[in-house]
Every structure is written in structure tokens, then in C-alpha cells.
């Protein structure tokens, strides 16, 4: 339903004229995220505080328009898009780090704080907030919570939900709730905190966040190792874990990713290699050197070549350069990208690799895999021109069969990107009818009128 002039004026009254727009040029800026999809909202709002959001929600229920909360739009599944029109709630003015409580190892922040800025602020105090989605330079804490963002460090440190102690949220009914605690533990009532985390902005609008922090590790060491095949690299990953070493990050790039980055950046990567592993360890000074030696031994015993080490911040950043360049460099392979985020139990990575190879052979499409080998999270991409109907059909069939195989191996079809709109059609492959029914009923309790972020997660 289109937004009437009367409703728009009421919205102006709530947030002020300067923080409310329905000019085309403003709407376009908030019509996209990191998927290729684009939906024009009816209006964009920049609320200043929780009370304003509550008032907007109350109006939404009264005047029947939908509200879509948005961090910085770096999501990979369309979670922040106005698929049914309505009002985009941009959380950018909620950008204060309220307190870094060194004695209690916790921090309070507003949801619009950019993740990397938060990292810097806590690290300055000798503390550590581990979740590090690849988009952390622009993603926001609120968006990270809503999607339960992961990142390379998840192999050792877990994902966003493991750090959220409590939050404040405006419910789709306009009520403001405090969930969770400000302490390290708390078991009073149902865990609404973890229900809201990962709910992709469909159950409430997070307006304040309490996270736990860790002491900042003293030292980091990094290395890269080159393998003749991706399978060999995957076996090495298993061997590392079997030896009881949990690295801080354990990333892999397949041959296609290596070639892709090399032709983009010309940094003398081994373009003939089957795979490359990038491994980091952290901890006390005394332990990191021992660990990196152990890792070298494991890699050598698995036939690794060309092992490089990094100690200083800039050396480590250099090793990461190739890994971080993959996503943007991919488009040289084709104008369109189908991007998946599957996870399989770590021991099944070699099986998955073989299956991907077979699919590549069968379809002749360009497929690129990279990601978080340490936790079995594979970012799998098919690059194509979607105008080529034949290729598009082949790609869709390939994705279908890949998802089925993922689930057969005991995995999941979304490790850290969420479901949003791009995976909604597939959710029933993973979630059974009884489970889905429960989730929908929960949504209904929170949002009886269906005004908050409609059209997401659940297939229509």
C-alpha cells in the first residue's frame, strides 16, 4: 500500500522534516544491499531515539504501512530491502558507543555503530570483540546482530550471538523491551535475546546492545601455504583440528579464486596451485611461535609448498589482501553472481569439494569457492550472465543439487548470511513443516499485523 500524504506528514512530525524523505534520489540510495536486488521504498526515515521508533511503529500499525530496519545495507540476502514498499528505518543516527566497561569486560553501544569502529575502540582499551564479518568496515553492530553475522574468527571465537548479553528492542507492537542481562550469566525467563539475534529484523528493531568482550590477545602470527589440490588443503584442515590446534582463522581459496585475484591485483600468487590456506593463531607471545611451528609441520607433512609467514600488522594485512580481494574481483568472470553460504561438518569438506568439481565439469559454468575452512563454511559462487537463460537454468539446477547435498552431509544452507529474500524459496529444504509453523507463530505473536520487515525468511 502506498504511503499517503497524511501518513507521511505524521512521520515528519515524529522524526522532523530533515530526517524524513520521499524524494526519488534519496529512496534510490536505500533501495539496494549487497545482493543484486533493488526495491524502491516509499520513504526513508532517520530516527534519533527509541521513542521515535516506537512512535513510528505505532503509526505503522494504525495506518498500515510496513517498516524495514536497515544498518548499512551490506547484507547478502536482501534482509534490509523494502520488498513490499513501506518505510526504511535507517539506524545511522544510533551511532554512539555508550560505554566500554573495562572492569566488567562488557560494552554498551547503539546499533548503528560501524563494526570496525567498535573493534578499534575496544582494542584501544586492550579488549577484544571477536565477530568480524568481511564487511566490518561498513557493516553495523545492529545489522550484525540481526543477521547473527560470523566471519573468519568464528572458528575459534564463535559468531555474533556468542557475544550478545542483552539488548533493547522496539517490538512490532510498539512496546520497548529489555532482553537479557548486563552480566556474564543470566537465566531469567526465555532467551528473548537469542531469539531476536538472527531474526533478520523481523521480530523487533534493536535499539541498544550489550556485548561481552575478551582480553585482547597479546600476539598474532599468520601463514599461508599452497597445496596441489583443494582436497589436500581440506585434509590439512582436518589434521590441524585433530592435533588440537584451534587457529584464530583458517581460510581457504580455491584455484579459481587465486587466479581471479591474481589477474585483478598482480601480486604473484601461485596460479597453478589447487588451493591456498591462510592461517592465523593468537594468544600469548610464548605460545604463538610454538603454534605456528606446529602448523608448519602439519602443512609440510600434507605436502604444502611455498609457506610464507607474517608477524607484523602490515605483513599480516598483506597476506589477507588476496583473500579480501576475492569478492569484488569476481565480476571479471561474469556480470552476475549467484552467491551461496553453505556450511558442512568440517570432516565433509573434501566430499563437498569433490561434488563442486563434478558440478563444474557437468555444467561448464564458472564456479569459485573460498571461505572459512575451519568451520566448514564455504562461500560458493557461480559467475554468469543471467541474460543467458540456458546458463541461468543450469546454475539454478546446480544450486539445488548443492543444497540437497549440503543437507545430506548434515550441513546448513546459510552459515552467516541469513535467509532474507534470496534463500526464502529454499528454507523448506532445511526446516521441516512443524518447525516452520512454530517460527511463523512466533512471528505472529511479535508482529500480529505483519508490519515489520514483511516478505522475509518465510516463503509466501
Amino acid at each position, binding site marked *: 500500500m502506498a504511503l499517503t500524504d497524511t501518513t507521511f506528514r505524521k512521520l515528519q512530525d515524529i522524526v522532523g522534516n530533515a530526517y524524513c524523505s520521499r524524494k526519488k534520489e534519496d529512496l534510490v540510495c536505500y533501495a539496494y544491499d549487497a545482493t543484486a536486488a533493488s526495491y524502491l521504498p516509499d520513504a526513508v526515515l532517520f530516527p534519533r531515539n527509541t521513542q521515535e521508533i516506537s512512535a513510528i511503529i505505532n503509526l505503522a500499525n494504525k495506518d498500515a504501512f510496513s517498516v524495514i530496519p536497515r544498518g548499512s545495507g551490506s547484507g547478502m540476502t536482501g534482509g534490509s530491502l523494502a520488498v513490499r514498499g513501506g518505510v526504511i528505518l535507517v539506524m545511522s543516527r544510533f551511532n554512539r558507543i555508550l560505554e566500554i*566497561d573495562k*572492569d*566488567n569486560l562488557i560494552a554498551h553501544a547503539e546499533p548503528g555503530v560501524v563494526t570496525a569502529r567498535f573493534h578499534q575502540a575496544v582494542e584501544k582499551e*586492550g579488549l577484544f570483540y571477536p565477530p568480524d564479518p568481511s564487511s566490518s568496515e561498513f557493516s553495523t553492530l545492529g545489522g550484525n546482530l540481526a*543477521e*547473527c553475522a*560470523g566471519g573468519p574468527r*568464528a*572458528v575459534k571465537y*564463535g*559468531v555474533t*550471538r556468542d557475544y550478545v548479553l542483552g539488548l533493547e528492542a522496539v517490538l512490532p507492537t510498539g512496546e520497548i*523491551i*529489555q532482553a537479557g*542481562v*548486563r*552480566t*556474564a*550469566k543470566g*537465566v*531469567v*525467563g*526465555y*532467551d528473548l535475546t*537469542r*531469539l531476536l539475534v*538472527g*531474526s533478520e529484523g523481523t521480530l523487533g528493531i534493536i535499539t541498544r546492545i550489550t556485548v561481552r568482550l575478551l*582480553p*585482547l590477545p597479546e600476539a598474532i602470527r599468520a601463514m599461508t601455504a599452497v597445496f596441489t589440490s583443494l582436497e589436500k588443503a581440506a585434509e590439512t584442515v*582436518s589434521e590441524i583440528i585433530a592435533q588440537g590446534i*584451534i587457529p584464530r582463522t583458517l581460510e581457504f581459496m580455491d584455484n579459481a579464486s587465486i587466479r581471479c585475484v591474481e589477474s585483478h591485483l598482480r601480486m604473484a600468487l601461485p596460479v597453478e596451485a589447487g588451493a591456498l590456506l591462510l592461517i592465523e593463531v593468537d*594468544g*600469548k607471545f*610464548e*605460545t604463538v611461535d610454538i603454534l605456528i611451528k606446529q602448523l608448519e609441520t602439519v602443512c609440510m607433512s600434507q605436502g604444502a609448498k611455498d609457506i610464507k609467514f607474517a608477524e607484523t600488522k602490515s605483513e599480516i594485512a598483506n597476506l589477507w589482501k588476496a583473500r579480501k580481494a576475492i569478492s569484488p574481483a569476481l565480476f571479471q568472470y561474469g556480470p552476475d553472481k549467484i552467491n551461496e553460504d553453505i*556450511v558442512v*561438518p*568440517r*570432516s565433509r569438506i573434501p566430499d563437498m569439494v569433490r561434488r563442486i568439481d563434478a558440478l563444474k565439469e557437468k555444467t561448464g559454468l564458472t564456479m569459485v569457492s573460498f571461505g*572459512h575452512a575451519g*568451520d566448514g*563454511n564455504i562461500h560458493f559462487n557461480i559467475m554468469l550472465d543471467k541474460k543467458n537463460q540456458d546458463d541461468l537454468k543450469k546454475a539454478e539446477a546446480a544450486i539445488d543439487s548443492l543444497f540437497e547435498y549440503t543437507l545430506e552431509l*548434515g*550441513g*546448513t544452507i*546459510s*552459515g*552467516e548470511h541469513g*535467509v532474507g529474500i534470496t534463500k526464502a524459496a529454499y*528454507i523448506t529444504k532445511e526446516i*521441516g513443516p*512443524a*518447525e516452520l509453523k*512454530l*517460527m511463523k*507463530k*512466533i*512471528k505472529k*505473536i511479535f508482529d500480529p499485523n505483519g508490519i515489520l520487515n514483511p516478505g522475509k525468511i518465510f516463503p509466501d
Partner: protein
Amino acid sequence: MAEYAPITDEIRSRITRELGDECIVSNLDEAGTYAQDASELRYTPEMVIRVEETRQIRRLMRLANEYRFPVTPRGGGSGLAGGCLPVRGGVVLSLENMNRILSVHTEDLVAEVEPGTLTKVLRDAAQSKGLFFPPDPAGMDQSTIGGNAATNAGGPSCIKYGTTKDYVLGLEVVLPSGRLIKTGTRTRKGVVGYDLTQLFVGSEGTLGIITGLILKLIPFPEAVSGTSAVFNDLPTAMRAVTKILTRGHLPSAIEFLDAKCLSLVNDLLPFKVPGEKSTLLIIELDGAPEQIRHEIGVIGKICEDVGATHLLPAPDKEERERIWEMRRQVSLRIHDNSALYIPEDVAVPLGKIPALVAELPNFEAEYGLEIYAFGHAGDGNIHLNITAESRDNMTRVEKGVQAILARVIRMGGTISGEHGIGEAKKQYLSMELSAESIRLQTEIKNVFDPNMVLNPGKIFPE
């Protein structure tokens, strides 16, 4: 309040017919043991059933809905809040015989277990494969994994390793309707749909009956070392805790015992308690042997710099066992020595621990209580063992408890760190949770259990 059917002969024979008679605990003495947990509460079940299979649970729940009788699931019965007691009568469903460890997978670092598996048995099984299941509730020789998940149990290792919820990846659950569902994944990551797994964890057996768990394991730490330190008072001890943590050390346990607790175990201490306010810190560290040997020295030095009067290094297992045994004895002796014993389990921000403990004498004087405080100094979780010399003046005691909890909430704390609400604390729920939050939660309960047959009367005051 929902009305329930008594367990009539007809219901009894339907249950027997559909579940088989082996699972019925008919010996009265034996059935009587299911009337209690580790709290002081007592509610006698009308019928006790000890199932072997998920199928039986599904049938039981269908009957419960048909006849409207309550079913209360139970693990090891070591809970401290009455969560497994049949407060509205009906059937107690014991899961203790569903106790198989189905797999411990070394490469994936995952274990699949049935809910009746004892916590300690799982920890040992993991350790025999070089793996570690960190949650270590004090009752772990008696508690079950299903019970731990239902109450989101914690323990001393929480400071470094978190609580049970951090180790539950996926669940198999029989819903109150009898339907079987699966939640979560076998992988570390997974964000498909709402997090039902974490909704069940900590829901105290009110949303579903956990029949299978997929748990996350980590490599077993190579070595453990420890030290204990005596301080003149609690504020000094807490200064040491803060300093240890902010200097980048993350011990696997930092426990404290206040002077009152220490006075109960004088005979077990290798030193004379130096002063009236003396406080003991028990610190453990795990990791690579070279590293912790060095680090435990650094931590000892921090304690001394801050003002520790005695340092008792415990590099060997036997020495650490002795200290933990002393800690266990404190609990037992408090319990044995008092006519009335109320275990409160508050958590406050770390920095507030000394202030709270300093105020305890005022509460003791005002409400006629004797309060023994010990707990997890590293995560702010204080076990306030509230005792009184007689049970005569319960109203006054309850007022005292309420006043203490109100103070805890004003300090930014929570009324339950790891024990749960169950029956024992439900009257205090609204002190911490807003009306909106409670409404939302009762509506969630209603979605899962429209006939209120599963563990009724818990968490939410009626």
C-alpha cells in the same frame, strides 16, 4: 489457572498400555524420590514414568493433551529451583534411562547424546578422545545433559568457556503436542530461520522435552595449573580479579569464598584464617604447559602486589582436588548446619561484587538471616546461601530475600545466574522482567503448549 485431570485408573491403564509397563515406576519408595530436587521444595507426583525411547514420550504427550494431565520432565533431579517438580500434580517423566552417548566425532568436534547422559559421563567420554565439554555445574556427577540444557547450566569454567547454551548446536525435541521436531545444525554456524535451539535451552522444560542433543566440543586443554590466594578482605580480592582479567589473562576458573564460608571449613584449610574478613580466591588456568607455568606465576605475582597474605600454588592435580573438595564441603556444611536454607544465585557486574557483599550484614541484621557468599568471582555470579535458625518466621525471611534481589537488580544484576526460576523464584520474576517481556514469553509458551500440559506452574507466576 488451567484445570487438570487427576491420574485416574483409566489414564493409568492407557499409559501402561501405550508405553508398556516396564517404564512405570510402581515401587512407592522409589517413586517418592521423584518428589524432590536439590531445593527444599517437595511435591509428590501421581505417577512416575522412566522412559527408554522417544516414541514413548510422544505417546505420553498425546495422552496428556487428550486427558489434560500435567507432565513434568526430569533429568538428574539436581536442580535448585524446583524446575522438575510436579507442582500441579500429574506425571513425572524421568529421562535418566535415555542415557546413551551416540557419537563423539573427533574431526567435527561434535557429540550426539541422549538427554539422560550424566554431565560427568559425557565429559569423561570426550576427554578419552582428547576432547573437552567445558560446562561444569557443581552437581555434574548427578546432573544430566538434558537438564543442563533445559536450565542453561553454568559452572566455574563459565568465565573462560561460557555456559551450556554456548555448546548446544542442535536439538531433537518432543513438543507438548507430541510432535517431534529438530532444531539447529551439526555445524558451528547456521542462521536459517529463528533460533529455536536457543529458545529451548534455558526454557526449564516448559516448551518441549529434549530427547537428543548435538553438542559442540573443543580440544582438551593440554595442562591445568592453579593457585589460591588469601586476602584480608573481599574488595582487595576483587581488585586482584579485575587486574588479572584486564592484564589479558583468562583463567578457566576464579572462585571466591567469603570469611563466613571459610570459618565453616577451618579444619580443611592448610592455614589459619588470618582475619574476620578474609577472602579466598581459587584460580585455575588451562592451556599449553609452557604457557600456563609461566602465566600462573604472573597471576600469583598480581595477587601479591594487590595484597594477598598467603599464596597456595596448586600445580598438581591432588592439590587442586583438595581445594575443590573444600569448596564442596562449604556447600554441604551450610546446608547441614541450618534449619532453613535458601540458595540464591544472583549475578552482578564484577565491579559490584564487593559492594553487594559489604551490604549483606545489614540484610542479615534486619531480617534475621545468616548469609554465606561464595561463587564465581570471574563472572559476577554469587551464590548467596541464605540461612535462618528456624523456619518460624518465613514471611520475614522472604522479605529479606526480596530486599536483596531488589538491590541486585538496582546494581544492574540478575536474580538468577545459572539455577533458573522454576518454582522457587517465580514470585520474583516481575522484579526483573517488564510486563511486556512477560506477556511475550507467556504467549510463546501458549504457542508451544496451548493446553498447558508441559511442566505447568513454572517460571511465570499465575
